[in-house]
């Protein structure tokens, strides 16, 4: 139990939120430099 919830529930909650958020941050960072190059064109 963590904060009253079984650890399996926390796994579901984290996979539902943190994993996609991490992917979205990676997506944003991966193309941030595209912005800079294009701005100078």
């Amino acid at each position, binding site marked *: 139990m963590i*904060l*009253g*919830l*079984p650890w*399996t*529930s926390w*796994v*579901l*909650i984290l*996979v*539902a*939120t943190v*994993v*996609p*958020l991490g*992917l*979205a*941050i*990676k*997506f*944003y*960072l*991966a*193309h*941030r*430099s*595209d*912005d800079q*190059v*294009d701005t100078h*064109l």
Partner: protein
Amino acid sequence: VASPIIVSVLLAFLAVMIGIGLWSKGESGNVAGYYLAGKRLPSWVVAFSSNATGESAWLLLGLTGMGYLVGVHAFWVVLGEVMGVALAWIIVSRPMKEYTDRFDSITVPDFLEDRFRDSRQILRRLSVLIILSMVAVYLAAQLTASGKAFNSFLGLSYPVGVLLGTAIVLFYTTTGGFKAVAYTDLLQGVLMFAGLLILPIVGMAAVGGWTPMIERLRAADPSLLLPMGAHGMTTTGVLSAISFAAVGLAFLGVPQLMSRFMSARSVRELPPAGLIAVICIIVFDSGAVLAGMAGRAIFPGLADPETILPTMASELFPALFTGIFLVIVLAAIMSTADSLLILASSAVVRDVVQKIYRPRLSERRLAMYGKLTTVVLGLAAVVVALQEVRLIFWFVLFAWSGLAGAFVPVILCALLWKRTTLAGAISGMVVGFSATVIWVLFFKAGFYELYEMIPGVAAGVLATVVVSLVTRPPEGADVEFDSVWARIGSPLGGRRGAPKAASRSGVAESGRSAEDEAARMR
């Protein structure tokens, strides 16, 4: 009798919607302006517009009700939706934007016709049929929800509620077109974000904090705290979890969301928009489920779990905030209804009138036809809604999966697999849509209520791939596919720096310069 404070908040909201419609008027005089806001929207508008369009009254009333009814198990919906939104931005948005800019597409059928060199316009005709049939169901459900919201918050009669909601949406949609729709979506999305951030916090505070909430839920039913719910790791439990998560598949290809990607100012707007959209959808969905769980701890034994949000809004907040929550429910309804109206209108005017029967009509006349069609479609949906159709969310989920079954397999294959052929795309659309409908009619009840989106999308992908493998891809489509991906680079930046170098050759291959592109957009 409604409190004057609630009525004032509502009137202020409706006045702002009308104001945005008038402010956007200048953009709606031609087809690209009316249906895509001239492809000039910034990242934050695109992000909020896509989320507010994708999430209807189902989020506020249906998902909170699900959190109330099944507790942590409802996080499978959060998983599906958040992952669906993240993947849509990461793998779909950029190639969709790049392709549709090159083709000068305004609608998804425009894109499919050019991508597959469909000179007989079979995909366009099929798309229009499916869009119109599904949008009719979806739109009528939203207007029904509008009638019920006005009725439960203000005590207005149901028909007056339907007519009032429709009149406001029709006014700003026909006056300002897609620009008004997108900017009202932005405001509506911000309101939904704030509401779903505050509601679970206030709910938990009312019950005494996180631990007391969990203890009350455990006392009521220990399975509310388990990820697999009351069914556990049984076939029913696993298929229920998969069905919940499958709701998010639609984000990968339904046309009303694809048009958001197409309306962005440029491909560069999409990565920041994607990040905003994912943060926003996490708050939307987690907030709705947690609010439902807190609501169950405070107000156990509600006859209808889907009334938990109005119950919390009226019992836990002062009148001003009750008014704001009415506005938030209306925002969710309107932000979906307006986008469906624009989508259906584009299917009639752009895809049928301009592209099939009357290509020589002036832009101004076509935009006028677009507005007229929007009004006619809105009034047709009112007639259906006035029959007071029950089971709002059954219709919403069915229409959502019908559109997904038809479009997700074809869009994914068109953007991600260069070997996809015209025959494959046609088969995928027909099989995906038919499988969805057939599953609901004949198999769903006998197979653990498995959500129709799963067989629909799976059958559609299978049909697209199998038929594509035995037919020839369109002439030049492979070179074009490579050029698009060279221009935008890999989704998560595996080849950092390469996309820019490749972009110039990509543009050269497509025969257009950056200046040409910019001039065309203007």
